[in-house]
C-alpha cells in the first residue's frame, strides 16, 4: 500500500522485446499450417498430373475409333465412352426421379409445415439416412429393390439393372437434396411469408409461389450437389447394376449396365489384375480425367447459376 508504482510486480523493461522462444514458436506454427495447406494443394496437383499423363499414354496406345464402338469391354480393347456416359446419365436420371420429388417434398414439409417438435425429430433421422454407407444401400438395392420394385414394374428385368441401382443412388441423395433445400427455404425471411398470407394466400401457395422461388438458388445448389453425388457414386452401381467386366451400349434401364465410376471400380477390383493389360488399366485414368472435368463443369455451371439467381432480400 505504501510503495505503489515502483514495486509493482511485472515484466522488466526489457520485456518489450518479447520472449524469443515464443516468437520462434509463432513462426513455426505459421510454417506448419502453411505446409498443411500446401500438401493438400500438392496432392490435388499430383492426382491431376498422374491422371493426365496416363490418360495421354492411353490415348497414344489405342486407335481413337476404339472409344466409340459397341460397348465397354476394356480387356478386349473396346472402350466405348457413350456406354459409360449414358449409363451414368441414366443412373443420375433415375436417382433424380426418385430423390427430386421426395427430397424437395421433405424440404417443403420440414421448412413450412412441420411443427418445431416434428422438425426436431425428423431432421436427425434424415441425417442418419445420409450416414448409411453406400455399400449397404448397394446391397439393399441388389437384394430388395431389384426383386420387389424393379421386377414388379418391369417383369423382363433381371437380378441386375440400372433402374435398381438408380433407385439406390436416389435413396442416397434424398438427404442431401432435402437438407440443403430445407436450409435454403428456411433462410427465406418470415416477412415474405407474412406478405403472402396477408394477401389471402394458402400455405401451399405461399410455399410454392413465394418461398420456393425466393430460395431457388439454394434449391438448385441442392440439386447440383445431389447430381454430383449421383454421378460420383460407385459402389451402389457396381453392386446392383451388374456389368462387371463390361457392358454393351444400352439405354434400357431394366437391364444391366455400367457407369464411368463403376467401370473404374470393377476393373480395379482384385480379380481383374488391372496391371495385366496396359491399355485397359490406363483407360481408367482417361475415364478419371473425363469424370473430373465433367463434375468440375457441373459445379461451375451450378455456381454461376446460383450466383445469378441469388435473391437479395
Amino acid at each position, binding site marked *: 500500500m505504501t510503495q505503489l508504482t515502483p514495486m509493482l510486480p511485472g515484466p522488466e523493461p526489457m520485456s518489450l522485446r518479447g520472449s524469443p522462444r515464443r516468437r520462434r514458436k509463432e513462426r513455426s506454427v505459421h510454417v506448419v499450417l502453411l505446409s498443411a495447406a500446401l500438401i493438400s494443394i500438392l496432392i490435388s496437383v499430383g492426382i491431376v498430373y498422374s491422371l493426365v499423363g496416363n490418360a495421354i499414354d492411353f490415348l497414344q496406345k489405342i486407335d481413337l475409333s476404339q472409344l466409340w464402338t459397341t460397348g465397354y469391354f476394356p480387356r478386349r480393347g473396346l472402350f466405348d465412352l457413350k456406354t459409360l456416359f449414358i449409363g451414368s446419365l441414366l443412373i443420375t436420371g433415375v436417382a433424380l426421379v426418385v430423390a427430386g420429388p421426395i427430397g424437395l417434398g421433405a424440404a417443403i414439409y420440414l421448412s413450412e409445415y412441420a411443427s418445431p417438435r416434428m422438425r426436431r425429430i425428423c431432421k436427425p433421422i434424415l441425417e442418419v439416412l445420409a450416414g448409411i454407407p453406400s455399400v449397404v444401400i448397394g446391397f439393399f438395392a441388389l437384394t430388395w429393390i431389384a426383386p420387389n420394385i424393379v421386377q414388379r414394374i418391369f417383369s423382363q428385368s433381371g437380378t441386375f439393372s440400372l433402374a435398381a441401382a438408380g433407385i439406390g443412388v436416389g435413396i442416397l441423395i434424398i438427404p442431401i437434396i432435402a437438407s440443403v433445400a430445407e436450409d435454403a427455404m428456411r433462410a427465406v425471411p418470415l416477412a415474405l*411469408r407474412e406478405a403472402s398470407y396477408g394477401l389471402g394466400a394458402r400455405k401451399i401457395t405461399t410455399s410454392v409461389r413465394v418461398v420456393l422461388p425466393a430460395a431457388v438458388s439454394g434449391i438448385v445448389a441442392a440439386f447440383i450437389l445431389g447430381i454430383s453425388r449421383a454421378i460420383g457414386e460407385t459402389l451402389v452401381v457396381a453392386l446392383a447394376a451388374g456389368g462387371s467386366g463390361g457392358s454393351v451400349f444400352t439405354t434400357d434401364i431394366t437391364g444391366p449396365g455400367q457407369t464411368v465410376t463403376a467401370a473404374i471400380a470393377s476393373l480395379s477390383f482384385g480379380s481383374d489384375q488391372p496391371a495385366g493389360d496396359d491399355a485397359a488399366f490406363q483407360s481408367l485414368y482417361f475415364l478419371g480425367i473425363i469424370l473430373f472435368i465433367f463434375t468440375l463443369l457441373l459445379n461451375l455451371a451450378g455456381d454461376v447459376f446460383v450466383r445469378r439467381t441469388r435473391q437479395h432480400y
Partner: protein
Amino acid sequence: MNQLTEQTLVTVTLPESSPERSGDAANRADDDSVFSLRGVNVHYGSFHAVRDITMEIPRRQITALIGPSGCGKSTLLRCFNRMNDLITTAKVSGSVIYNGENLYDSYVDAVEVRRRIGMVFQKPNPFPKSIYDNIAFGPKVNGIKGNMDDLVEQALRDAALWDEVKDKLKQNAYGLSGGQQQRMCIARAIAVQPDVILMDEPCSALDPIASARIEDLMTELKAQYTIVIVTHNMQQAARVSDRTAFFTVEVDEARSSRTGILVEFDTAQRIFTNPSDSRTEAYITGRFG
C-alpha cells in the same frame, strides 16, 4: 390533471379540418362499425400479452392504435386478420366480430379473412419479383377475374405510385426506394380489393418525406377503405387518424409479467387535446413512453 388547459397539452398540430371530422366520427362510430372487439385477450404461451380489449372500429375511417413499446398494439392488430395464427404459441380468446361474424369462430377460414382484411407491415416486404408480379400475386391467388394489366395499373394508381413505376413494371421491386416499396406494398394490398387495410407501423422504416406521402395516401384511401394503423409516432396518429386508441403496459412486479391494456379510445381530437385519463395525458405530453 384533467383540468390542464388545452395549450399545455397540444404537443402536436392538428389539421384544420379535424374538429368537424372527428366530431362526425364520434357520432357515426357505433352505428357503422366494421369490427367489434369483445373482451379480446391474447396469450403467448403463459405470457398474457393483451388483456380484455373491447372496442369498435368505425367504417371508412382511420383508427390509430398508439402506446409505448410492448403495450400489445401490434399483437392486437394481428387479431384483426388472424395473422396471430402464424405464431403457434399465440392464443386469442374473446370475440373479434367483423360485419357480424366472429373471426375466431371455428368455421371461419383464416385465408378468407385475410383476403378481405389486408395488411401492410412495418418493413416494406416486396416479393423478390417484378413490380407487376408483386401486384398481380394477390389477384391471381384469389382468382380475381378481369384484365390483370388494368388491375395492376389501378392498384398502383390508387397507391399514388403509377407515374413513378409505369415504365419499369417488369423490374425487380427491390430496385425501388424504401418509400416506393412501402407504397407498392399498399398497392399490393389494395389489388385484392379488401374491405379493411391494417397497417403495422408502416412508416417506421421510412424518412419523413416518404412518411408524409404514405400519410397523404392513407387520407385518400379512407374514402374507400377502413384503415387501422399502429404507430409509434404520435404526430402521425394526430395527423391522420379519426379515432385514436391509447394502450399502455401494466407491469405486475410480483409475477414479472407485462400486459397490454386499452386505456382510452376516443376521437383523435379528444385524445390529443383533452384526454380523460391521466396516463394518456402523460404519454401524449411526452412524460413517459
